[in-house]
């Protein structure tokens, strides 16, 4: 009986871990993709985009299996709703990274060199927020009392990304060399990259509630 429970639970635990790895990897690949774009390595960017698409498919497949197994074996009935919501929300992050790289690859916005550092810093802050979120989600499954620590870091990086978003927007719109249509185009990408940290913050807030519900 114990073995039966353990192997089934272990199997799903491993799937959840694989799923979280997909999210983390997507963040790292996204970061490299943005760097490739600024290095004018468009071929590499395309490869990164395909890698993220592949990761997204794997994540979707894993999510389906996790949901099926949790339902079929009637596991964690009390926290099941929260876990599904959490994992679904994380899927949005991979979707966003894929979308941004695809748009960069198709639209090739003309980002002026003076914005390069701001863009990279903002991407870094957003990806740090995603990373800390994934750590927080792992803590939710393994050591609930640590969740708040990771969530605080997500909040920190989200604020940092917000600050950089504002700076970038001010710099591009105060520039006289760039046309308004380009400014609008670049603003779209600034907002899309910052969206990653916003989403992470939103999920982190819910994570705090799920963790509080789990505390005995």
């Amino acid at each position, binding site marked *: 009986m114990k073995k039966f429970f353990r192997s089934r639970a272990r199997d799903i635990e491993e799937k959840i871990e694989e799923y979280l790895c997909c999210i983390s990897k997507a963040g790292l690949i996204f970061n490299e993709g943005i760097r490739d774009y600024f290095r004018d390595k468009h071929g590499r960017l395309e490869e990164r985009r395909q890698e993220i698409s592949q990761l997204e498919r794997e994540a979707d497949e894993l999510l389906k299996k996790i949901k099926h197994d949790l339902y079929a074996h009637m596991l964690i009935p009390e926290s099941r709703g929260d876990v599904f919501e959490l994992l679904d929300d994380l899927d949005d992050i991979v979707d966003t990274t894929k979308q941004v790289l695809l748009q960069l690859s198709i639209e090739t916005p003309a980002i002026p060199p003076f914005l390069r550092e701001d863009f990279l810093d903002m991407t870094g802050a957003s990806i740090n927020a995603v990373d800390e979120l994934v750590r927080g989600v792992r803590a939710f499954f*393994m050591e609930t*009392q640590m969740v708040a620590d990771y969530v605080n870091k997500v909040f920190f990086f989200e604020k940092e990304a917000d600050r950089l978003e504002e700076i970038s927007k001010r710099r591009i719109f105060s520039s006289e060399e760039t046309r308004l249509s380009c400014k609008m185009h670049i603003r779209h990408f600034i907002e899309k990259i910052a969206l990653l940290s916003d989403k992470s913050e939103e999920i982190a807030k819910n994570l705090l509630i799920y963790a509080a519900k789990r505390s*005995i």
Partner: protein
Amino acid sequence: MPGSFFFLSSGLFMGWGLGANDAANIFGTAVATRMIRYRTATVIAGVFIILGAVSGGGGVSRTYGQLGAVNALPGAFTVAFAAGLTVLWMVRLGLAVSTSQAIVGAIVGWNLFSGTPTDTGTLYRIMSTWVFAPFLGGLLAVALYLPARRFLNRTRIHLLRLDSYTRAALLAAGAFGAYSLGMNNIANVMGVFLHDSPFRDLYLGAGLTFTGIQQLFLLGGAAMALGVLTYSRKVMMTVGSGIYALSPVTAFIVVLASSLVLFVFGSQGLQSLLLSLGLPALPLVPVSQSQAVVGAVTGIGLARGGGNINFRLLGKIGLGWVATPAAAALLAYIGLFFMQNVFLQPVFF
């Protein structure tokens, strides 16, 4: 003989209601949170209630005998019926009612009617447990909760594995809870019929005897189990999702703490062991499972910082300590008068 069995009906009805109601205290959260299937919970509860009643119910029932030996079957019927009516009445008034308090009140009512002196020593001993049981429930819950919280915060157990361990723990605690309930509360169901049991000892061979009292308790236990099987779902859902709103781990602690209360007030074996070790033993007295649960939940609420305490409910329990036995004594007195003078049945000898 069939008439004798008819007179047991009020006790059986009491058992049916007690089973339906108290199984919810044991398995309510586990079933409402879908940790344990309803059918599994009812089967385990039914089996262990009967086991507890038959194997360990004697000691507690003797305490009622010391309070008042109801010596005529129609009298016992009326006493159990009055207690049942009181429970119904108090539930409708929204008071946290205890079957034990109703039975004790009804026995005192019989004593008053029959002119039998009430053993005040036994009465005080019983009444002190009414106050002590919820306190003990609270103490035990805190004693279990604090180390459990510490342990769970220090060890890295995955949510999924914790879930399967919690299920196993809830099943084990539920079985223990059902056993303790059967052992401790069978006295409320069949205790007043002890002196007029229609059952005779059965010799089973190989030196084994199935005593009349055990047969009586088997019948009472079966009535409790029938209550669990037929009428506990709604109560389980109410207890599990409405009143206490516990997490499965906390529910396990509450069930274990309240079951331990019933066990220490019901186990003759434990009492003998403590006495043989020269330690003070607790009296064998039926205590309210619901009130032990409220005590345990309150204890955990205090351990978590006091935010969850329902002082209104505690006030109602306090009121129930006085109102329930008083109402039961009054109803028993009136009922015995009618049984004796209208139905012309002997209610005491």
